């Protein structure tokens, strides 16, 4: 199967990637348009809810959270694979990451931003949002540092800012390339500004290497901490079905899972719209697919562990929730999650599907659906079937306003992502060059070795 050619001219790499900033396929504009419409719907819903009150989301006591928090977790989770691919694989010198990590990181950043939005639409008094920030004030009032929600805020802020920096630093040499190849105009100005006068001197490269490595090292534990903190929003509470020890690893696995699935989806979309067949090769796709499969199995395992733990415990309330999940109002969705999350990925086990683009595209979408359902199934059943039977409520159903905003969030994310790919090189040029360079060296060595043998 064909991979990036060793003999590809470096100049061509520049041209190809720079082209992606100029003229993508028509599909790009279609996607962009759809995204804008979807986002519009979301905004409309929020305006309506903001003016009328949270009631229009058809939330109630005890169902106080609904889809907002579920989707919030979903987006947080999605953000994790960017880091995984970029940082971990970077540390392991897996050079096949090089053509694809850029958009993966972009995905991280933007899904974090989307997640942030859900905190906003969720709270009852958006106009008082700043109360939850630890800013010094004359009254000496501070937010409650004991609240997992505040840990969330802190972790997400750290994660978001770090990933943005990581993304930016990694992009500097490419910005320099863009600067050098771009005709005069606002773009050139932009790149000149962002390239910070990068010239690829030995000194710059030296420090660059160390810095990049360091941040990568920071990002990995950070990513893990972020989603385990999100998990502790639930694990730290007393609610049945939430108060589970294995939640943090379970959440992290779920996060990586949905992230990888999303990467496959976006990989396929970018590959086509920006004509990256040359760089985003099927062999790379194959590697991601295998990685995803592995993670899917880990997730399946942790899922089973969670249920087993509850089943084996003497916590009647939690058991009741589990049974409710499997047999109650939400059963179809819960089983849907199991199917999408644990059965569908088995497709990846077959060699012939591992590079079959249509199949992979469909599958990856299913996986993400499954991961979204997982988040919803963590939230809803616990609320509708909590500790206190008198307030059990199995009839609560998210209103169109909630669905509208979930829909809109996908629009928002796609919008940001697509614009990014159009403005910034979504394939790392300098690293592709490195990749090619090292391969050639390797080939040379092996040739000379052969000659020696004769």
């Amino acid at each position: 199967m064909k991979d990036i050619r060793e003999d590809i001219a470096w100049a061509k790499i520049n041209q190809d990637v720079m082209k992606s900033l100029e003229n993508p396929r028509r599909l790009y504009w279609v996607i962009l348009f759809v995204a804008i419409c979807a986002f519009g719907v979301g905004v409309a819903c929020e305006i309506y809810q903001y003016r009328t009150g949270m009631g229009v989301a058809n939330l109630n006591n005890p169902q106080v959270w609904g889809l907002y928090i579920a989707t919030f977790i979903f987006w947080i989770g999605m953000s994790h694979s960017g880091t995984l691919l970029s940082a971990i694989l970077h540390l392991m010198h897996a050079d096949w990451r090089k053509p694809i990590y850029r958009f993966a990181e972009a995905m991280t950043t933007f899904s974090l931003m989307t997640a942030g939005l859900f905190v906003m639409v969720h709270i009852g008094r958006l106009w008082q949002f700043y109360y939850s920030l630890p800013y010094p004030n004359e009254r000496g009032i501070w937010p409650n540092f004991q609240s997992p929600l505040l840990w969330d805020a802190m972790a997400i802020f750290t994660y978001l800012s770090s990933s943005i920096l990581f993304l930016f630093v990694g992009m500097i040499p490419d910005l320099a390339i863009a600067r050098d190849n771009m005709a005069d105009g606002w773009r050139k100005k932009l790149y000149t500004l962002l390239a910070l006068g990068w010239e690829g001197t030995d000194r710059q490269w030296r420090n660059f290497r160390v810095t990049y490595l360091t941040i990568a090292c920071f990002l990995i534990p950070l990513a893990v901490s972020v989603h385990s903190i999100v998990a502790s929003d639930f694990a730290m509470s007393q609610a049945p079905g939430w108060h589970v020890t294995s939640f943090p690893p379970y959440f992290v696995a779920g996060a990586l899972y949905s992230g990888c699935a999303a990467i496959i989806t976006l990989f396929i979309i970018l590959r086509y719209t920006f004509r990256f067949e040359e760089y985003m090769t099927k062999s790379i796709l194959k590697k991601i697919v295998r990685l995803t499969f592995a993670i899917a199995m880990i997730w399946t395992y942790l899922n089973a562990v969670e249920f087993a733990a509850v089943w084996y415990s003497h916590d009647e309330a939690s058991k009741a929730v589990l049974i409710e999940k499997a047999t109650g109002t939400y059963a179809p969705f819960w089983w849907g999650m199991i199917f999408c999350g644990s059965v569908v990925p088995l497709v990846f086990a077959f060699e012939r599907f591992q590079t079959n683009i249509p199949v992979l595209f469909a599958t990856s979408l299913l996986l993400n659906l499954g991961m979204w359902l997982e988040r919803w199934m963590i939230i809803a059943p616990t609320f509708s079937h909590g500790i206190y039977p008198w307030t059990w409520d199995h009839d609560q159903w998210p209103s169109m306003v909630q669905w509208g905003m979930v829909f809109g969030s996908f629009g928002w994310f796609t919008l940001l992502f697509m614009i990014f790919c159009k403005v910034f090189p979504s394939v790392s040029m300098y690293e592709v060059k490195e990749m090619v360079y090292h391969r050639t060296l390797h080939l040379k060595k092996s040739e000379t070795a052969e000659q020696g043998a004769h």
Partner: protein
Amino acid sequence: MIDSGSIKQLAGHPIDRRDFLKVLGWSGAAVALSGCGNTSVEDGKETVVSYVEANDYMIPGVGVYYNSTCAQCDAGCSINGRVREGRVLKLEGNPDSGINKGKMCGLGQAGVQDHYNPDRVREPLLRNGAKGETITWEKAYALIAEKLNGVKGEEIAFLSGGVSGHLKVLLGNYLDSIGSKNHFVYEALSPAGVRAANLKSYGVALPRYRLDKAKVVLSFGADFLGSWISPMHFSQQYAQFRKGADGQRGVLIQVESKMSLTGANADRWLVVKPGTEGVLALGIIHALGTASGEIAELVKAYDRVTVSKATGVSVSQIDKIAALLKLRSPSLVLAGSAVEGYAHGAQNAIAINLLNHVLGNVGKTIEAPVAVPFPQLAPSVGNTASLKALNDGLAAGRYKVMFSYATNPVFTAPGAFKFKDSMAKAGFKVAFAHYLDETALQADLVLPLDSALEDWGTQIPEYLADGMQLNIQQPLMEKLHANTRSMGDILLALVKQRRVEDYKGFEDYYAYLRSSLLQNKGALGAGGSDDDNFWNEALTKGILKIASSAAMLSDRAAASGLQLPKAEEVDAKFPMHFIPGVTASMRDGRHANQPWLQESPDPLTTIVWDSWVEIHPKKAFELGIAEGDIVEVTSKTGSIKAQAYLFSGIHPEAVSVPLGRGHEALGRYAKGFGVNPFGILDAVYDKETGELAMHETRVSIKKTGARVLIVKDEGAAGGLQMGRKIAVSKTTDQVDLSEEV
């Protein structure tokens, strides 16, 4: 002795003393009038104190409390209203009242919402085709005078709810002045049958029930904790009864076909075949085996097996009850509203009362009531027979002019009466109303009344729980609406049309009331004290406690001529008994427009804002009915559609729909919520008393196919705790109440 000279002087012209006393409502008073202390017309000029103009006793930001009387039902609880900056905020109970001793039920507290209700009538309205046009009071009065002109007394009908005190006096005097004797006092839910039975059994209509003295209370369908006679008083007695004098907890056994709030609190709730309560009572007498003579003779036929078959109560259960009643004395047996609702209702009640005689409770837990010393002020209590009389009269076109006050017959009359049509036959209909309710809508002239919290008045409750007391009603704040008037003022104005001379001394109802009370302050327990002191004290207390003698109880058991019907065969067309449910907050529905009451969940079903059909799960299963199914309940008279609620606290052969909802008028919080079961009640009467037998309607149940989500407070788990330790209970052998604080 009263100085008639001074009276001549003040009345401005010579009238003889008897008339004068009649005017003021003291004629025939059982106590001597004290003539000392002079009254002056000046008092009449006093005006109602405005709580809006800050007086020295009103500190902004601090609540001031005024005592008055609750008008939400007839129990006559005394209220203690919190007023701030001239606005009444909350009604507490008045601790000095022997009736409610500082407590308030939900219905009573909702009185403020009656006062502040946005749907009150604010202007006198004259029918002009389909709609009403606003007119002035002068015009309204003139119109009444004109319409009465040349109409014979017997052609005038005055329908009212239960009235007492000086309002009753004025009303009586007015009717007298227009020569009418047709005062129909109607209450849809009054214990008329029980009164009749009690008269036979005890010689009094309502004896004083002493739950607090009883060790066992055997209640046949008496919802004394919810809506029966004087719930606030009974509830407090119940608390003592439960604690027990010597730490021995009182035992409550409730016998009824549909669980009431009281039944829900019983140690043993026994479901009986509707109408067989009396049979069970006789069965218990039989099982006691202590009766002799006439009674023994009577109950001979009622051996445990027969009774068990007839009532559906197990033999062992009957024995247990008998044993307990023997063991613990004194006990108290109550015949409540559920037993009187049959063609043999009075007989039912008499049979049950018999138990008290057999158990020797009469005189112990059944005490003689106090006699009301002032017959003219004594409450004239409502019943349903009077409505029947009125309805027949109207239908026969006997009445040209009809007045309606404090009652809503178009809503509460049984469907079989077709009251609306009958009423249309009256030429000129005047409604004194707080709201544009169903009856007011049929009237030609609607006169807006002050709310109970704006009004003056005196009231004597029918059930004097704790000695004779005259309840004072005074405004807790200034009128909300300029053009509403006190019923007293209206009657005064009307009576002045006829007897201006007698009444011209009284500028308004307040003046009338004041001078009337002062006139007799000696008898009211303030002989000799200065008028103003007496008056102010009366207003401060809100109650006048009056020494009075007790009536006589007859301890002679009225067993003779007692006969209970044999079990009647089931009508195939209408197989089920229909039990109109009486809930503590809705009652007959006159307060349905008070949102607190609409949103406070029904204690047993936790349903809000709507009606429902209680049906036993077994029966529901037979008929394939599930919770929330819209079922059609059809009687000979009519049919209603409502959501089904599976309720195990009801006899499988009966269904129940709560009264009070299903208004077509009244106001925004009442209109269009639920259905009105009054509408399907057949016209069946108690053979003895002629009272409407509300439980005699038979119905059939049909699924309509529609289904709704029942709006109720209980969650998806229903009334189950799912093994969580939330509401825990013990049995008496596991506790020692005497140790408790």
